[in-house]
C-alpha cells in the first residue's frame, strides 16, 4: 500500500517543516568500544569477536581510549562543549543483535553537547544547525532474516546474526529541532549530513563510507501549519544511507505528512523504513516517548574524565575546518566561485582532491568528475563517489588521451567500459579495439576522399580560410568512425593542400 502524498510545492504552501537528525558515525578505531577484538568491516561473520562481544557470562567492558579521543574531536569539530566527567549507561531491551540484551550507551551525560554547524546551501546561503549532543555508544550485531518475502523478522523462517559489528564504537550526533528551513529542508538535510560526513572524514576518525554504514542517518520530520509554534508529530526515517536518499527521504516525508494532515488525521509517531527503489517510506515500529529502556548508569565502568588540558591538546590536533579547507582548495585549484560551488553541490570535492592527489591536474579532474561522472551517477541514481570510478582510472584515461593513444570520445567509451566492469582502461582499449588510427595511409585515403567530395571547402582552405578545415576533419573522423587523431588529421589536410598551418 502506498501512502498518499501532496506535491512538494503544495505541502510547502500549507505547512512549515521542522527537521531533526540523528547521525551515527562508526569510528575507525583498531579495536572495539569495549573489547580488544578488531574493528574490521566485511570479514567472515562472527570472527572479529571475543567473549566480551558475545556477552559471555562474567565478562566486563573496558573503554577504548582512542574512541574517547575521537569522540572529543568530533565534539570539538561540531563546536560542542566537552563534558569534564561523563558516564555510560545501560539501555535495556531484549533483541538478539545485542548480546548482553542491553546496549552500553551514554544517556543523560553525553561527552559533547551544545554545539552547532554552519551549513552552506547550494546558492551560498548559510544555515546554522544547532547540535544538541554527541554521545558514545556501541553498535549492535547484524541480523539477516532468512525466508519470508520482506527480509524483515516478521515472516522469516530463521535469522542469522553476525556479531562482528557488535561493539563497534559509534558516536551519535543529535541535532536540536531545525526550524526555518522551509522549502530548503530537503537540500539542508543533504547538506547537513554531507557536512558531518566531511568533518569525520577529515578528522580521520571514521572511514565515513555511507554505503558501508559508517555514517548512518535517521531523519526526523514533522510539519506544522505556518505560524504555529508547537511542533507537529514527527516520524523518524531510519538508516537513510546516502546523501541523495537523505534529501529524497525528507522530501517524501514532507509530502506524506502534508497529505495525512490534509486528510484531518493525526500523523502517527513511528519509525519509517526508507526504500531506495521506490523512493518512499513505509511504516516501521510505533515509537512513543514512553519506550522504557530502564536506563541506569553502567556499574562496570568508571566515569570518563576529560581534563581541560587533554581537551585542549586534542583541539590543537584538529584539521582545518571545512569552510577554511574549501577556501584553500578553491585557491589551489584555481576554480571560479561558480565552478567550485558546482563541485561542492555535486558532492565531488573529495573525489577531485583525491584525483588530483593521484596525479591529475585540477582542470582534468574537474572535467572528468563534472563533465562525465556526475551525469552518469545521476542516471544511475547514486552519489558520484559511489559510482565506482577510482582516481587512478581518471589519471590513466587522461594519460592515454595526452599520449594520443585514444581521443576524448573514446575515453568516455572506455569509462563506460570500466563502470561496466570490463577491466582496466588499458584492457578495455585492447578488447574494444579502440586505438587511435595513427597510420597515415588510411587517413590520407579518407582525406583525399573528403577533399574530393567537398572541392569548395578545399579551395577555401587553399585560399587561406583555414577555419573551414573543420568540415573536412569531420568527414574524416566520420569515415574512420572516430578512431583518428583529429590533430594529426588536420596536419595531413594542410600538408595535402600545401598550406602552412
Amino acid at each position: 500500500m502506498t501512502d498518499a502524498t501532496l506535491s512538494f510545492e503544495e505541502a510547502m504552501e500549507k505547512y512549515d517543516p521542522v527537521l531533526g537528525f540523528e547521525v551515527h558515525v562508526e569510528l575507525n578505531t583498531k579495536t572495539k568500544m569495549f573489547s580488544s577484538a578488531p574493528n574490521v568491516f566485511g570479514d567472515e561473520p562472527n570472527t572479529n569477536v571475543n567473549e566480551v562481544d558475545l556477552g559471555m557470562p562474567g565478562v566486563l567492558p573496558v573503554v577504548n581510549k582512542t574512541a574517547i579521543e575521537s569522540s572529543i574531536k568530533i565534539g570539538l569539530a561540531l563546536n560542542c562543549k566537552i563534558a569534564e566527567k561523563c558516564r555510560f549507561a545501560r539501555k535495556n531491551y531484549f533483541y538478539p543483535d545485542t548480546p548482553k540484551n542491553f546496549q552500553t550507551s551514554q544517556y543523560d551525560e553525553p561527552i559533547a553537547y551544545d554545539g552547532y554547524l554552519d551549513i552552506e546551501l547550494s546558492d551560498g546561503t548559510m544555515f546554522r544547525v544547532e547540535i544538541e549532543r554527541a554521545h558514545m555508544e556501541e553498535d549492535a550485531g547484524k541480523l539477516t532474516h532468512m525466508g519470508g518475502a520482506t527480509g524483515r523478522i516478521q515472516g522469516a523462517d530463521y535469522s542469522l546474526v553476525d556479531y562482528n559489528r557488535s561493539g563497534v564504537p559509534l558516536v551519535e550526533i543529535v541535532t536540536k529541532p531545525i526550524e526555518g528551513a522551509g522549502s530548503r529542508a530537503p537540500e539542508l538535510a543533504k547538506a547537513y549530513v554531507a557536512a558531518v560526513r566531511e568533518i569525520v572524514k577529515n578528522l580521520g576518525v571514521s572511514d565515513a563510507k555511507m554505503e558501508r554504514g559508517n555514517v548512518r542517518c535517521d531523519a526526523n520530520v514533522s510539519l506544522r501549519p505556518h505560524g504555529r509554534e508547537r511542533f507537529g508529530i514527527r516520524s523518524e526515517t531510519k538508516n537513510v544511507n546516502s546523501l541523495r536518499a537523505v534529501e529524497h527521504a525528507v522530501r517524501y516525508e514532507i509530502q506524506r505528512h502534508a497529505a495525512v494532515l490534509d486528510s484531518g488525521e493525526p500523523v502517527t509517531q513511528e519509525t519509517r523504513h526508507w526504500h531506495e527503489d521506490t523512493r518512499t517510506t513505509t511504516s516501521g515500529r510505533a515509537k512513543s516517548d514512553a519506550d522504557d529502556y530502564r536506563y541506569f548508569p553502567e556499574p562496570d565502568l568508571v566515569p570518563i574524565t576529560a581534563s581541560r588540558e587533554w581537551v585542549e591538546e586534542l583541539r590543537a590536533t584538529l584539521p582545518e575546518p571545512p569552510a577554511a579547507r574549501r577556501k584553500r582548495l578553491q585557491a589551489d585549484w584555481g576554480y571560479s566561485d561558480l565552478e567550485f560551488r558546482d563541485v561542492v553541490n555535486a558532492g565531488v570535492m573529495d573525489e577531485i582532491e583525491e584525483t588530483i592527489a593521484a596525479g591529475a591536474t585540477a582542470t582534468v579532474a574537474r572535467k572528468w568528475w563534472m563533465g562525465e561522472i556526475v551525469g552518469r551517477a545521476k542516471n544511475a541514481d547514486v552519489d558520484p563517489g559511489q559510482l565506482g570510478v577510482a582516481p587512478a582510472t581518471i589519471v590513466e584515461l587522461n594519460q592515454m588521451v595526452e599520449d594520443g593513444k585514444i581521443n576524448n570520445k573514446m575515453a568516455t567509451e572506455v569509462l563506460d567500459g570500466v563502470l561496466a566492469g570490463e577491466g582496466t582502461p588499458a584492457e578495455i582499449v585492447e578488447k574494444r579495439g579502440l586505438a587511435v588510427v595513427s597510420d597515415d595511409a588510411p587517413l590520407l585515403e579518407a582525406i583525399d576522399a573528403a577533399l574530393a567530395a567537398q572541392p569548395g571547402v578545399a579551395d577555401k582552405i587553399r585560399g587561406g580560410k583555414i577555419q573551414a578545415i573543420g568540415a573536412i576533419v569531420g568527414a574524416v573522423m566520420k569515415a574512420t568512425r572516430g578512431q583518428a587523431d583529429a590533430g594529426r588529421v588536420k596536419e595531413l589536410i594542410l600538408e595535402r593542400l600545401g598550406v602552412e598551418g
Partner: protein
Amino acid sequence: MTENNELIRLSAAALAEKLAAREVTAVEVTQAYLDRIAAVDGKVHAFLHVNADEALAVAAEVDAIRAAGGAAAAELHVLAGVPIAVKDLIVTIGQPTTAGSKILEGWNSPYDATVVERLRAAKMPILGKTNLDEFAMGSSTEHSAYGPTHNPWDLDRIPGGSGGGSAAAVAAFEAPLALGTDTGGSIRQPGAVTGTVGVKPTYGGVSRYGAIAMASSLDQIGPVSRTVLDSALLHQVIGGHDPRDSTSLPDPLEDLVAAARTGNVEGMKIGIIKELHGEGYQAGVENRFNESLELLKGAGAEIVEVSCPNFKYALGAYYLIMPSEASSNLAKFDGVRYGLRVLPEEGPLTIERVMGATRAAGFGDEVKRRIILGTYALSAGYYDAYYGSAQKVRTLIQRDFEAAFAKADVLISPTAPTTAFKLGEKLNDPLAMYLNDVATIPANMAGVPGLSLPGGLADEDGLPVGIQLLAPARQDARLYRVGAVLESLLEAQWGGPLLDKAPSLTDAAVSSHGGSH
C-alpha cells in the same frame, strides 16, 4: 585418623611449608583432598564438579619442578601445589560453570576468570567447583538448582550463602582454600556459620573479570580458608590491578601476608557499631562477640563505640540496587547464544517467546523474584523513588563509615545475627532470609573490606559464631593484622582451631549433629 587425614587438616600455610621442604608431594596432598571429597561430599554436597585429573596433573607438574630444583623450583609460588576449590560463579576453562543455575547447565567457559588465571600461574591445583545459591542469590545455598549444601557442623543446617559450597568445603576439610564471591555477605556469612575465615576485599581490590555478575557495583571475589593467614596468602595471589576490569584499583597490593604474620592490636582503636548488635542478635552470638571484645582489650586495643545511623536503611537500599543491577546483568541468559534453550510448548516460535520460555524454565524462584524487583525499580517513573533513593542511601552509608573510621581504626560486629538455621526453615520467608545479611551488607554498599573469623560456639546450640572486622577502603591489611591477633587469642582459649570441635563426617554414627542443646 590416617596420615592423609592429618594432611588435610593442615592449614594452607603449613602445607606450603611441607611442600617446599619436600616432606610431602603436591600429588599426595591433592590426592588426599580428592579422597576426602569422595568420602564426605555425598553428605556435604559442597562440590558441583570435581576436577580430579587436571588437579593431579598440576600437582604432578609442581612436584616435577620441585624435584628438578634450580631456578624454576626457586621461582615457584609459595602456594604452588596447595589445592583450592572455586565457587561455581567464577568461570574456568576445562570445567563446567553453572552459577548454580539450570540455565547454564553444561556450559563450558571459553575463557578463564582473571583470578583463575592467577591460580594457574601460581600452579595451585583446582579441585573443582563449589555449590552456591543460584547466581549467588541467597544466604543458605538452598537456592542452588543442584540441591543444597549441608553444614559440616550439622548436616541438617544451612552452610550459609551464597557461598555455602566454598565454606563447607573448607570446613569439611575437602579443600584448604576456596574462592568465594561476596555481594552482600556471601563470603563472610557462610564463613561465620561454618567456623571458617572469609574475606571480602575492598571493592576493586580483586578483579571481577570472569565472576558472573549479580550486582556489578557490589560484587567482589575473595578468599575462604580455615585461618586468617591462609586468607592473606590467597588474597595476595588473586589481588591487584587487572586491566580487564575497569573498576579494579590501580594501587599495588599491600603485603597482606606480612600483616597477618605480624598481627598487633596494641593501641589500636576498635569500634563497636552500635547498630550492629544487641536486639535481633542471638544471645550466644552476643556472648561470643563480647568475649572477643574482652580479648582484644586485653591485648591492648581500645574499644570505642561508633554509631552508623544510616545502616538501618542499608538492607532496604541493598534490595533495590542489587536486584536492579541483577535484572540487567542476567538479561544475557536468553537461550540465543549459549546455555539452556527452551521452546514454548504451544503458539508461534518467535524469538521473544523462546527467550521467555528459556528464562521461565531456566531460572529459579529467587532469581525471578529479584529480576522482577529490579526491573520494577528501574522502570520509568519509579527510577528516582527506588534506584535513585537507594543510591543516596549508599552515599549516606559511606559517610557513616567515614565518620566511624575517624574514630576507630577498624570496626567490629557479629558477622550474622544468628548461627546456622535449619535447612528449609526460612525458604518460604524471603524477608527473614534477607535479614541474615544485615551486618554484612553495609560493607558492600560502601566498598569497604570485611573479614569474618570464627568467634567460638554459641552456648545455646553449639554452632559457630562469626566475628566481623571492617576496615576503611584499601586498608585490607588492618583486617589481617587484627584478625590474626584475635584468632590466636581465641585458639589459645579453645586449645586449638575451632574446627577441631566439628563432628567427624566419616564417623558412621554421626550423620547429623544437633550441637549441645
